[in-house]
């Protein structure tokens, strides 16, 4: 299968702090690749570099052969925080139409495609509601519909299901699997949840603690049709998740410091602050 995304020697540092170091991997067309790593390991930085939202310090990203410089036109991102990423002044339909504004000039065509995308996620009846009138799970379905509406070559998802309850999360996972089966999307999904990465992915890329680098690249040898109960109970699933857990937690030569959880959270906060600062500076020039 042809390569959709290629990341080569990617590095990003905030001042003297390296968030990502020498990362290389590819994602094939129609593949769903999950990136799993401890929190604060630089996953979001990686995703932002791929999306062209921040410029990597070194290395490069190519999307279907074209080097990424600035945000590519045929890319969409679903962020974790749906409540902050949907535009509160736009109706659900308005939100889904938003990315089409620069892509589709015809109004009725835009409307049609938005309705279509809403139907994919089962929200055809909610078009004229406002995001804040919907539950969290429904709001995240709106952001998924919005991302799919522009038929992106690559769909990036940053911890998309981390802010919803367990049942909604399972529903959204299955929704993502169904939608990508029906529409053949290439997806790169970042998560800190090992089970989720195995359940959703065709491949799982395991990242180290920061500075992030790839520790393992596992192919998920599970049947394409997944089931929340049967798949998660299968021997292969358990094997894979155990392997990833080992890779993450007992990396030879890198014993986690005693206050690991704490320092992860701190690192995550630092990255976020540094990113905001950078974005602010960029936008002021």
């Amino acid at each position, binding site marked *: 299968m042809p390569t959709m995304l290629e990341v080569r020697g990617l590095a990003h540092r905030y001042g003297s702090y390296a968030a990502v170091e020498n990362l290389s991997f590819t994602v094939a067309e129609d593949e769903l690749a999950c990136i799993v790593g401890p929190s604060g390991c630089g996953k979001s930085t990686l995703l932002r570099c791929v999306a062209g939202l921040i410029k990597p310090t070194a290395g490069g990203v190519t999307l279907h052969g074209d080097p990424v410089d600035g945000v590519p036109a045929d890319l969409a991102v679903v962020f974790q*925080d749906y409540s902050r990423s949907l535009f509160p002044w736009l109706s659900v339909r308005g939100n889904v139409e938003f990315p089409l504004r620069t892509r589709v000039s015809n109004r009725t065509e835009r409307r049609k495609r938005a309705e279509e995308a809403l139907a994919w996620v089962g929200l055809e009846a909610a078009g004229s509601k406002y995001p804040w009138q919907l539950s969290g799970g429904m709001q995240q379905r709106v952001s998924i519909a919005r991302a799919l509406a522009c038929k992106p070559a690559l769909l990036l998802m940053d911890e998309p299901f981390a802010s919803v309850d367990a049942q909604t999360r399972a529903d959204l996972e299955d929704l993502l699997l169904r939608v990508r089966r029906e529409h053949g999307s290439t997806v790169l999904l970042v998560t800190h949840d090992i089970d989720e990465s195995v359940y959703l992915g065709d491949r799982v890329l395991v990242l180290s603690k920061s500075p992030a680098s790839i520790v393992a690249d596992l192919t998920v040898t599970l049947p394409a049709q997944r089931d929340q109960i049967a798949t998660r109970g299968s021997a292969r699933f358990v094997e894979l998740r155990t392997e990833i857990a080992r890779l993450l937690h007992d990396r030879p030569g890198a014993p986690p410091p005693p206050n690991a959880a704490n320092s992860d959270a701190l690192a995550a906060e630092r990255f976020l602050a540094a990113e905001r600062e950078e974005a602010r500076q960029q936008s002021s020039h």
Partner: protein
Amino acid sequence: MRPFVRGLIGLGVLLLVWDGVVRLGLVAADNLPPPAEVGARLVDLLGQEEFLRDVVATVLAWLIAVAVAVAIAVPAGLILGTIPSVRTATRMLIEFLRPIPPVALIPLTMIVVGSGPDAKIFLAVYASIWPILFNIIYALDDIDPLLLDTARSFGHRRARVLATVALPHVAPFAFTGLRLSAAIALIVTVSTEYLAASELGVGAFIITVSNSPNSMDDVLAGALVIGVLGYLVNEVLERAGRRMFRWSDTTRAEALT
């Protein structure tokens, strides 16, 4: 409707206390006429063309002042809120100008632009620019970076992000600023009419009648007109704001009730 009824009760209590104070002789009726007398005087005045002309003059000056303030403050706020270098360059000047009370500028204004309607419009504009300006600047500071990232991730360039994200985000805050400004502009318009010896306007009416004896009913009737005008405008703007910005945090709680 219930909040409205409650508001009427509050108003009724004020009128009762006012009436009681006069009846008990705590204040001489010449100095503070009872509410019924002021009401009757007001009805009387509203039938006089001269008084109506004063009211129209005040309302016109005030409307022009608010319109000019919006025309200055909105673009200025957007520029100051998006271009940090302009903001740092003007910060000292703005913080110096802002606390100067408009009445302190009346003598200067009278010399430079005279005591006609220009003077009160100028001072009302000066005073009512700030709430709109600062609400816009602070709202721009407050935009969620994730919303901007979202717009950027869909390939919107900077100018488009400003138009599609910053403007709608700022709108309800700017509107709140407008509501505050409208009240300030009315106060400054009438004060200037009163202090700068204007020929027309409710403020001019009040200072003219207060020179004749036993005219407190006229003075209070004039004040009443200003109060009612201010109330009506705030009410209209509040309702309009709630309709236009149903999605906004600032109005949502009220919209749901």
